């Protein structure tokens, strides 16, 4: 009897406790997050993030609901103000401000999101406050601030002298140091292979219609196209110049000269593809996939991917010849995150301001970002005796399983977040930024060892074997190839407001003038004819008033550069990124 009474008593005591816990569960505020981006890899409501978001919910004491905002729903929300608590957007920020739907978070940051006022995130705060006229408030939180890419490329294609690698190897890997070398190599390859293995005619060089006229194999040009329109920046000086009329520096004009050379070199034997002047992207892609071009503006993987299906050892594909003209899209520091296009804002009508800011605060915390990427400490990674973060055995197994593809649902990274991709799209900090422990937030894949161990492309392997390097990027670096370590162009351009309508009209007309003369320039029979057309075209642009527009843009650029460049250089210095030297600049000119 005593035992029965004690059980009843215990039950009576436990019941209210259980109920209170249940009530507490029910009382958790529901934080809604809406995503307007239409890029599937940025969707936030994937089931495979359950583990991570459950962790966040527990940390924040909230429930998080995800909503995908269709354009119609978003437009309606902008008009009515009925938006989720947090909105991830890539839309025009001024529209959001004009509609007054974003919360001015400035008064609350110090209390609820102090992490945003520290470290790299703080730089974004300062830029926004100074350049986007946010003195009276702060509304937008960038995503993925930090370096885009590292210099450990293990893929064969990038920007530079792209060739069909199997034919290039056949020629004995002749060095290519300039356009003359490149054209000669292309000519020899075509001479040996006027037709592909499938009987299609081959051409010296391919490009995809007008958008592809920009040649990408001259580092002094291809490194600096972050400026809008045809304005270009110099990665060494961070100056901007006029791509319409400055024919000496203009990527467009240089391209015209290159294609004119190609025309004159290939007109007689048909190795110049006349269709590049009229073909569609799809037609161009089809030719690339057939391997009809000896060289390309950018590497295309379709040819290799198709061939390797039937020949695992194939070298048929496009590869980038290591040369001083090579540029590697690495070490680009994005001060405002993903090109200033992906921002978060908190809805002005939110009832969960603290929770929303608390979430932002987590996203700015390198400790959380490390966990978002690598998983929980003690589970998938931990420090060794020397204080170096290492993957645990379980973590490595789970990662290997995930990296092999088709990981089961119960895979840790499938649950926790797609490793270094989806989850990394959310944090304010990029995965290659530094943790307080001194190691990258992603200390596993942001390594040379990882890049080398995951290199499977035959062309990359062949390149490494021939140039006796560990990674293809090493081959490019060792012959003078450059990356974006010194470039502030992207950050500067993302901080510049648009030109006014009249100026834009002038640029539209300027585009028409260029377009109208494009064919004549490319198909000019001689340098004399080319120069005459060029001079006539530039005169038209000058008459149009394009240089005045450029000067207006240049002023905006210089103003932004005055703010951005010191900040970026500060970050670069903090991250051990050495700027390019004047000697390097001279050499690349």
């Amino acid at each position, binding site marked *: 009897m005593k035992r029965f009474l004690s059980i009843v008593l215990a039950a009576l005591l436990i019941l209210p406790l259980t109920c209170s816990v249940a009530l507490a569960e029910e009382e958790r505020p529901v934080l809604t997050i809406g995503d307007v981006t239409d890029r599937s890899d940025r969707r936030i409501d994937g089931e495979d993030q359950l583990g991570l978001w459950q962790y966040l919910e527990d940390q924040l004491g909230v429930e998080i609901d995800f909503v995908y905002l269709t354009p119609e729903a978003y437009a309606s929300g902008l008009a009515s103000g009925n938006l989720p608590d947090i909105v991830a957007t890539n839309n025009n920020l001024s529209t959001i401000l004009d509609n007054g739907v974003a919360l001015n978070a400035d008064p609350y940051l110090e209390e609820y999101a102090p992490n945003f006022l520290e470290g790299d995130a703080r730089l974004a705060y300062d830029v926004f406050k100074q350049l986007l006229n946010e003195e009276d408030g702060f509304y937008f939180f960038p995503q993925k601030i930090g370096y885009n890419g590292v210099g450990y490329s293990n893929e064969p294609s990038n920007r530079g002298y792209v060739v069909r690698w199997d034919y290039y190897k056949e020629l004995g890997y002749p060095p290519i140091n300039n356009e003359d070398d490149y054209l000669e190599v292309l000519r020899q390859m075509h001479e040996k292979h006027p037709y592909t293995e499938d009987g299609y005619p081959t051409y010296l060089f391919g490009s995809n219609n007008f958008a592809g006229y920009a040649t990408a194999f001259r580092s002094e040009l291809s490194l600096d196209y972050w400026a809008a329109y045809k304005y270009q920046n110099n990665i060494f000086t961070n100056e901007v110049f006029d791509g319409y009329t400055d024919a000496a520096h203009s990527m467009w004009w240089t391209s015209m000269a290159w294609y004119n050379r190609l025309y004159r070199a290939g007109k007689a034997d048909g190795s110049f593809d*006349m269709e590049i002047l009229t*073909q*569609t992207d*799809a*037609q161009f*892609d*089809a030719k690339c996939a*057939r391997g009809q071009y000896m060289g390309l503006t950018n590497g295309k993987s379709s040819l290799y991917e198709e061939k390797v299906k039937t020949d695992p050892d194939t070298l048929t594909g496009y590869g980038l010849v290591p040369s001083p003209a090579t540029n590697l899209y690495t070490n680009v520091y994005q001060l405002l995150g993903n090109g200033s296009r992906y921002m978060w804002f908190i809805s002005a009508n939110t009832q969960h301001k603290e929770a929303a800011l608390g979430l932002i605060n987590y996203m700015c915390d390198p400790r959380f970002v490390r966990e978002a990427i690598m998983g929980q400490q003690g589970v998938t990674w931990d420090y060794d005796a020397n204080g170096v973060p290492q993957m645990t055995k379980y973590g490595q197994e789970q990662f290997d399983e995930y990296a092999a593809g088709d990981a089961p649902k119960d895979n840790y990274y499938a649950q926790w977040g797609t490793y270094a991709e989806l989850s990394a799209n959310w944090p304010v900090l990029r995965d290659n930024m530094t943790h307080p422990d001194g190691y990258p937030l992603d200390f596993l894949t942001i390594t040379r060892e990882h890049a080398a161990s995951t290199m499977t492309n035959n062309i990359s392997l062949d390149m490494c074997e021939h140039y006796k390097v560990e990674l293809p990027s090493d081959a490019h670096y060792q012959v003078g190839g450059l990356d974006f370590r010194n470039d502030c162009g992207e950050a500067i351009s993302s901080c510049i407001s648009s030109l006014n309508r009249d100026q834009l009209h002038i640029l539209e007309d300027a585009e028409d003038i260029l377009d109208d003369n494009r*064919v004549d320039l490319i*198909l000019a029979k001689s340098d004399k004819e080319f120069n005459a057309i060029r001079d006539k075209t530039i005169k038209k642009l000058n008459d149009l008033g394009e240089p005045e527009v450029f000067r207006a843009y240049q002023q905006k650029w210089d103003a932004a550069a005055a703010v951005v460049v010191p900040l970026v250089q500060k970050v670069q210095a903090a991250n051990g990124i050495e700027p390019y030297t004047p000697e390097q600049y001279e050499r690349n000119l």
Partner: protein
Amino acid sequence: MSHNGIAAALRQRFKSLRLRILLPVIIMAALVITLLNTLYYRAFTLMITQREQDMNSVGFDTISNSVVPLINASVSEVRGILSDSWVASYARHQYSSDPELVNARIKCRDALRSEFASHDRVFGLLFMRADGSLFGTIPKANIFADDPEQNPLPKKMKEQILSVPLGQTIWVGPVSEADICGFDDGDMSPSIMIAAWKSVNASYGECYAMMLLDDSIFDDLFVAPQDGKSVWHLFAEDQTEIWHTGKDTCPDPGKLISNSNTGKIFRDENGLPMCSFSMTMDSPAWTLVREVSMEGYEQIVGGVTRSIAILGGLVLLAVVIVYQLWLKRFMRQFQSLLNGIIRMGQGDLEPVTFEPSSIEEFNQLRHEINRTRVALGEQMETIRRMEREQMEQENAKREQERIARELETARQIQASALPQTFPAFPDRGEFDLFASMTPAKEVGGDFYDFFLIDSDHLALVIADVSDKGIPAALFMMSSKTLIRNELMSGCDPATALQRANVQLCERNTSKMFVTVWLAVLEISTGKGMACNAGHENPALRRAGGEFELLEYRHNMFVGGIKRARYQNREFELRPGDCVFVYTDGVPEAIDATDDMFGEERLVDALNQHVDASPEELIRTVHEAVDRFARDTPQFDDITMLCLRFIGA
């Protein structure tokens, strides 16, 4: 058990009456259930297809009324494109330099792209010159095939387009976007329809304009008739699929179209039930087909038919159980009857006590079985009796045959005992002698004998035993032997008969006797003595005369009375005299009227050929008897002996 064994067991099983009675019931019940299901299925599908007709009318009207105007509007809108100067310019295709050519292409391309960008229903615009060269644009390709060899369109399609009469629009296709482009990036429209017409202009000459439509123009049209269970197909005249709702193209348009509007439910390539409806538009003559999934309906039908089947199965089960119970009783009664029949077949004809049956036929059968049992018993008794009689007859016959064989044997023995070699004494010319005995069917008691007692004395004997058969024959043999022995011992005829009589009487338990005519002739003289012991009168013919019966007193027959006395009668024969003796078989031979041959006919017969030899005389008498008796059976031995005395 081997397969053959199993098969044999199954065959045996199928031969069982129980199964053969039960099986038709089950089959009939199954047929009824199937028939019900089929009728229901047909009725339901008819109802459904009728209902679907309503949707058809909506869909077909909506689509057909929209497609044609839509197409016509599109065609009308783009008819004037060739008047565009850039297009017309490129159609002329007369350029002196590469920049001119490329610029013309770009202008032409931009003009066309601008044109079909303003007509969102138009997929692309192509133009074919009379020489077969092609130019124009589609979303993924700008085509400037100034060399006719580079024209990517199928040859047949080119010929169709080049032959289109002025003022007429034809539809060709569908052709895939990949075929037009010359590559496939995996995102190509599979079916492009082309409306083509001939355009002639003074500035650019003859050209064939082609307006391309992809299936996107149909998307809106087919929204209204969507009902979630239908797939709409649009086929060109050659049944090539132009467009369809749903994911998959139709793998067998012919089947879909041929089955349309028939009310038939057929199976698609995945085995799913479908029905289809179609209508063919006037111009273009495309066929619009609505393929309706009957899966939902079939589920309903399947549910009901399953219910019918289950219910029918239960009813069938109940019927089978009840039928089994009844059949058990039936079979018991049947088995009882069968056992009765089996027993009857086994020869048990005792009446059987059957269980009373509710089946009248069984009662009748039971009655008939018992009646048959009785009749069969009687019949069997008759058969057994007849068998006995037959056996007895056969025994008697066998006995008769045995007796006949014995009699024959006896006759042969008897005959062998008589001298039969003639001339009996070939070296004695003093007399001519012949004798014969024709026995009746039974062994007779007649005998004759003649022998030389010595060289001058010839004994002649003819006798007739009083009875017939073996005893008479034996009696005859005894008599003959005794008489011969007595004569050979030197006795005269009377003494010989007397002595023979004594001996025969002493052993004559059968009470038989024998008549004997016995004579001993002295050959040298013709004199002799004769003794007639109750025998027929002899006939004598004196030389030159006729035969006459010698009637005189007879002695007692031999074997009758032991003390009887016999007397000789002397006689003398002269050369030419002839003595003829015989047994009673001759005069007592009867004809059909039981009239006897008689002594008179005998004497007459003898006298017909009085000078004949003894043998001829005997044959003459025999023939006379035969003529007299005709077919009347001979019932007594006919024995004759004739002696012609020739003298020394």
